[in-house]
């Protein structure tokens, strides 16, 4: 009846030593970004191209979101592609280069010195991404099975590489003539390559595997996922063509609409996974992650409004541009990380502490390794801070911005508190 026993040949889990530094770095970056948000909240009533906003955006995009995603990817990619991670050394290299490069880049933006600190930082980030892409590409090439999730992940890493290479070229373009136009002109393209190509594709690819897995759902629909994949990539390529060949602004409705349809299909996919789940009791971390799926639609709605405003006013729509960026980095990206951190990190720590302590009797479960009241307080603070700050941007209201930033900082402190509690966990005595 049963064939092909593997004996002791159980798949190797990526070492916690590889993964944990990314999580720790990401947590600190989130805290620093929240502090910068508080001391720079006045910048959110002015133009979007400002040193402090550039610094906060890159700290959120690279230090927070990308570092956490890189860490989680090293752990989860083997699950997605059903093969071991190719190299732990490449993973360490990726971490070391990014960890050194990001502060230099962010410092350069913050003080608006786009000379050597920022250029060196940006170059280190590109090298970090090259190491990551090589690791993922070799891991996938050695995998015996092809699946849609792996294609999402690999395509996302390619878009990430293009994003950071383009970003580095833009950085050098500030001091040396690399492009025919100034760097500010190209920022829209750089931002969307990263947000849609890297973050969105990766979140969709990983989420479409993990959400049914965590819900213990029977629902599978690869054709739907392929449709989503094609819609998102077509949108990105069309946007690039429209941008580079100076097509009319109104045409941008087409790629935005394609992404919107893709997100509606993904929301449908998640809903079906939820409906067909066996695990009826959904924990708080999954609830926050599912909230993040809903929050995915918010930036696209803001984008559609932004295009409309740009068409009508034929000029600047500064507060809507800022709200658009805010809903991406402090909205769905942060929400999904707040949820997924406490869905993945407790298992990594549990494996580290308890894997060799197998014995009869009850051990703490991974969810016992962090404080749930603190997690709930973090969730409430995050949602409140997000709404207040978002409203502050839209209404250009300093009091709302300051209050929102303070509450978001509280959420970042609570997040760090729980991450620290996890990372310093010692085995329970029997």
């Amino acid at each position: 009846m049963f064939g092909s026993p593997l004996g002791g040949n159980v798949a190797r889990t990526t070492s916690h030593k590889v993964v944990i530094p990314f999580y720790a770095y990401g947590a600190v970056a989130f805290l620093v970004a929240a502090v910068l948000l508080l001391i720079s909240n006045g910048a959110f009533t002015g133009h979007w191209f400002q040193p402090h906003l550039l610094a906060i955006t890159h700290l959120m995009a690279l230090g927070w979101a990308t570092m956490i995603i890189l860490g989680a990817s090293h752990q989860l990619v083997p699950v997605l592609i059903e093969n071991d991670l190719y190299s732990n050394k490449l993973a360490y290299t990726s971490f070391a280069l990014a960890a050194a490069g990001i502060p230099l880049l962010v410092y350069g933006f913050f003080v608006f010195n786009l000379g050597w600190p920022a250029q060196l930082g940006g170059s280190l980030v590109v090298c970090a991404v090259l190491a990551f892409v090589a690791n993922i590409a070799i891991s996938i090439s050695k995998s015996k099975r092809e699946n849609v999730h792996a294609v999402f992940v690999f395509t996302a890493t390619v878009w990430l590489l293009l994003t950071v290479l383009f970003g580095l070229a833009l950085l050098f373009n500030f001091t040396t003539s690399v492009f025919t136009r100034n760097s500010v002109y190209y920022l829209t393209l750089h931002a969307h390559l990263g947000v849609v190509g890297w973050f969105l594709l990766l979140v969709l690819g990983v989420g479409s595997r993990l959400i049914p897995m965590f819900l213990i759902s029977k629902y599978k629909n690869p054709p739907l996922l392929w449709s989503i994949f094609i819609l998102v990539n077509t949108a990105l390529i069309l946007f690039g063509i429209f941008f580079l060949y100076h097509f009319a602004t109104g045409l941008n409705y087409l790629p935005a609409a394609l992404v919107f349809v893709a997100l509606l299909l993904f929301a449908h996919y998640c809903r079906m996974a939820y409906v067909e789940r066996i695990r009826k009791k959904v924990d708080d971390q999954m609830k926050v992650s599912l909230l993040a799926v809903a929050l995915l639609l918010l930036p696209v709605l803001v984008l559609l409004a932004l295009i409309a405003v740009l068409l009508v006013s034929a000029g600047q729509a500064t507060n809507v541009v800022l709200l658009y960026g805010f809903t991406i980095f402090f909205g769905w990206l942060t929400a999904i990380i707040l949820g997924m951190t406490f869905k993945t990190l407790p298992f990594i720590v549990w494996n580290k502490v308890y894997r060799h302590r197998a014995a009869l009797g009850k051990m703490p479960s991974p969810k016992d390794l962090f404080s749930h009241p603190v997690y709930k307080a973090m969730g409430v603070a995050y949602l409140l801070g997000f709404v207040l700050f978002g409203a502050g941007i839209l209404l250009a209201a300093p009091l709302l911005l300051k209050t929102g930033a303070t509450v978001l900082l509280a959420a970042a402190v609570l997040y760090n508190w729980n991450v620290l509690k996890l990372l310093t966990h010692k085995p329970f005595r029997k």
Partner: protein
Amino acid sequence: MNHSDESKALLDAAYEALKFVDDPEVGLNVVDLGLIYELDLHEEEKKISCLMTFTTEFCPMGESIQANVTEALKMTVPGYVPEVTVTFDPPWKQDMISEAGRAFLGGY
């Protein structure tokens, strides 16, 4: 395989012991989760064999779960060497969860 009464009792005890080994993510024990495909006692070889699976082939908790199963068998059936084999043929499916397991997870 025919077993003596003593062996049957040992096997029953082993099954019960495995109900204390949880999949840490799900919080449900490996028996009710349907991860245990076969459990057998080989009296002459003094060996207890277990054929099991994981919910996904590259389960990050796989090593821990397998170690826990081995330890549980070692402690429950002293004098017998546990031999835990992992297979993905057939792969685990949600249908393999027992009625008790479904009730634990919230039922349909």
